[in-house]
């Protein structure tokens, strides 16, 4: 396996153009967290023509609901949750400049098409590797929707956050291709 590609947020068009499915990436910078409930609120804001609680241009949203942090620690266990629940919301966010998403599991064709159209990528973090990921989180602060508890929007500062590119800007899908490559009939 080739060396991992380092990426810093916010991402530019050039950043997402140089990766393809199957690439390992190490991300440094800010990630914004959000699950179902937070996504619904963001879309409501867009539909009302209001400002989002953070500048989404070039940013990455990480689908996660962490365990509570122990005192003095930036984060608890923080692995990805299934991404398909965010599918109805993601295209609208990409239209607003979202460049990356991190979660686990397949995305819908609508989301894959939107990634192509708006030049964004989807990456998988390893589901169930929450303790390993926690170590790569250096800082965490709630920036919106504190009432949602584990589902609040947090701004995480990460260093070498490990992920694998699953959908690139050319419409490829590692879930489909990876399985086809190793399937024996």
């Amino acid at each position, binding site marked *: 396996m080739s060396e991992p590609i380092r990426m810093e947020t916010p991402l530019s068009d050039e950043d997402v153009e140089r990766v393809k499915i199957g690439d390992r990436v190490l991300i440094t910078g800010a990630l914004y967290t959000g699950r179902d409930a937070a996504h619904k609120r963001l879309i409501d804001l867009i539909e009302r023509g209001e400002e989002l609680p953070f500048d989404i241009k070039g940013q990455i949203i990480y689908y996660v609901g962490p365990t509570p942090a122990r005192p003095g620690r930036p984060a608890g*266990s923080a692995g990805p949750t299934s991404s398909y629940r965010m599918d109805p919301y993601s295209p609208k966010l990409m239209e607003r400049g979202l460049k990356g998403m991190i979660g686990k599991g397949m995305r819908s064709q609508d989301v894959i098409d939107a990634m192509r159209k708006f030049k964004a990528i989807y990456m998988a973090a390893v589901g169930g590797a929450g303790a390993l990921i926690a170590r790569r989180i250096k800082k965490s602060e709630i920036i919106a929707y504190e009432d949602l508890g584990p589902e609040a929007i947090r701004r995480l500062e990460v260093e070498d956050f490990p992920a694998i590119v699953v959908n690139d800007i050319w419409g490829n899908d590692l879930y489909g291709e990876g399985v086809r490559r190793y399937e024996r009939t």
Partner: protein
Amino acid sequence: MREVDVGIITEKVKTLCMEANFDLGKDVLDAFKKVKAEEESPTAREILGQLEENASIARQERLGICQDTGIAVVFVELGQDVHLVGGDLKRAINEGVRGGYQEGYLRKSLCHPFTRANTGDNTPAVIHVEVVPGDKVKLIVAPKGGGSENMSRVTMLTPAVGKKGIVEYVVQRVKESGGFPCPPTIVGVGIGGTFEETALLAKKALLRPIGSKNPDPELNSLEREILEKVNRLGIGPQGLGGRTTSLAVHINMMPCHIASLPLAVNIQCHAHRHKEVVI
């Protein structure tokens, strides 16, 4: 008659909730090592390596192996010569779960089915009590994550489909689940009994150590047949392609009604957490 204070049960359940979530079993770690050596997919090897490192960090730092620290499933094997004193058994177990999830900084993942409002303390636990001979109390705590539980199914097959139909159903279930239950998985299979008993058989099958043989030679060969078929699907770790879709298939079977063939498939993610103690 031996008296056991339920306060001891609370303490033990509390500890088991934390230990299960921090300390992945040696059988799972050995299985990671074995399949990593055999994997052809570089992505799969990378993922398996991360899972090994993750388990070691979780143990050292007393962090949840996974952020989904599960719904607490508690099995109680209660010796018939034990007299429980000091309070209500179910309340004592729930008290232990509450304490363990609080003290261990574990995520509270239970909510009202309609409003989705969180219960706040990860209770109520799912409790299965079985009365057995003897004067001991055995407690098993098996926190179960939502992703893999969502991919599990109970079905009532037509008896005519036989063993072949059972194999096909289980393999198809794993195939349709793809990457969602966080492979590499352990597949628990219940055959026979009734609608509810077959589900319990499947869940209990998960508790058998990975790598152990099924004492029934026929079921042992059926487990191997299903495992081989499942690992030909190509799903691989996290569904990103590879040879390792499941680490093991475990089957429990009992007789069923002449009109029925109940079958349950309980899928378990690689964060296969269960700890036990005998009082």
